[in-house]
């Protein structure tokens, strides 16, 4: 009986070629997937830092306005209320932004930017590869050098009185890897 060889049959050789091509594609796909996953992980980390910082910008009692009673005693902090730039107090630490990151706070479309003398977040994102931006709507309390607002001043605004010292403003926080 004439037995044909199995190893070098045409079927086997063609399947070997197909298998090699498939393995090559699989390895390439795995490399691309690993690279994309690393990039996405860095982006998610940046997003987490930026969104936490934005939440703290509008809620940290060290940053936002403070309501006081007639006697001047503090009552509680007012979320989404920022003092005028002359008395605005901001630091990266209060927004839980580590030294690995840099930030910039700006007011898009407004004539006056938030650039008081003593606060962090004055960086320049130009040239940074990944920059995450978050917009938050706040009120700016235009009470001179004060960050404390009295009950009477708050009530003026609640009733839309012309004497209201608060105005609506969008604040943009940008965060990137330093």
């Amino acid at each position, binding site marked *: *009986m004439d037995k044909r060889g199995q190893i070098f049959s045409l079927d086997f050789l063609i399947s070997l070629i*197909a298998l090699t091509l498939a393995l090559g594609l699989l390895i390439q796909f795995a490399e691309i997937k690993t690279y994309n996953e690393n990039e996405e992980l860095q982006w998610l980390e940046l997003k987490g830092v930026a*969104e936490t910082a934005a939440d703290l910008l509008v809620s940290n009692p060290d940053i936002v306005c403070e309501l006081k009673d007639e006697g001047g005693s503090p009552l509680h902090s007012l979320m989404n209320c920022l003092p005028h730039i002359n008395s605005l107090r901001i630091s990266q630490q209060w927004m839980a932004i580590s030294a690995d990151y840099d930030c910039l706070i700006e007011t898009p479309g407004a004539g006056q930017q938030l650039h008081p003398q003593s606060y962090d977040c004055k960086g320049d994102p130009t040239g940074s590869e990944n920059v995450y931006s978050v917009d938050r*709507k706040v*009120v700016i309390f235009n009470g001179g050098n004060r960050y404390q607002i009295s009950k009477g001043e708050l009530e003026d605004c609640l009733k839309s009185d012309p004497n209201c010292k608060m105005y609506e403003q969008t604040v943009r926080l940008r965060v990137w890897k330093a």
Partner: protein
Amino acid sequence: MESVRKGFIFSLDAALALIVVIMVGGLLVMYFQVAEPKAGAYAASDRIAEDAAVVGFYLGKDAGQMGLSGTLPSDEFASCSVVYGYEIRVNSTWSSPIEKKYCKGM
């Protein structure tokens, strides 16, 4: 008489099975790629509605004046924040809470 044995690798069954596995895998990958961006948009809607409610409360503005809707929109997804006021009625034995909604739809 010799019997002819056909090769196994390129049988029609194997090729069809491979195509089905690739298609199902591709569909699953595409589904999860679409789900992730939607989650981010939902979180953004929550933030927009909450900020608008607080700022609207401070300035005595309703949802329309803040660029949002005062009722739950009929979109695929909507997020609402509610501010409660209290209306005191003189010469009456009851008072009622006032509800102001600030809704952002997607």
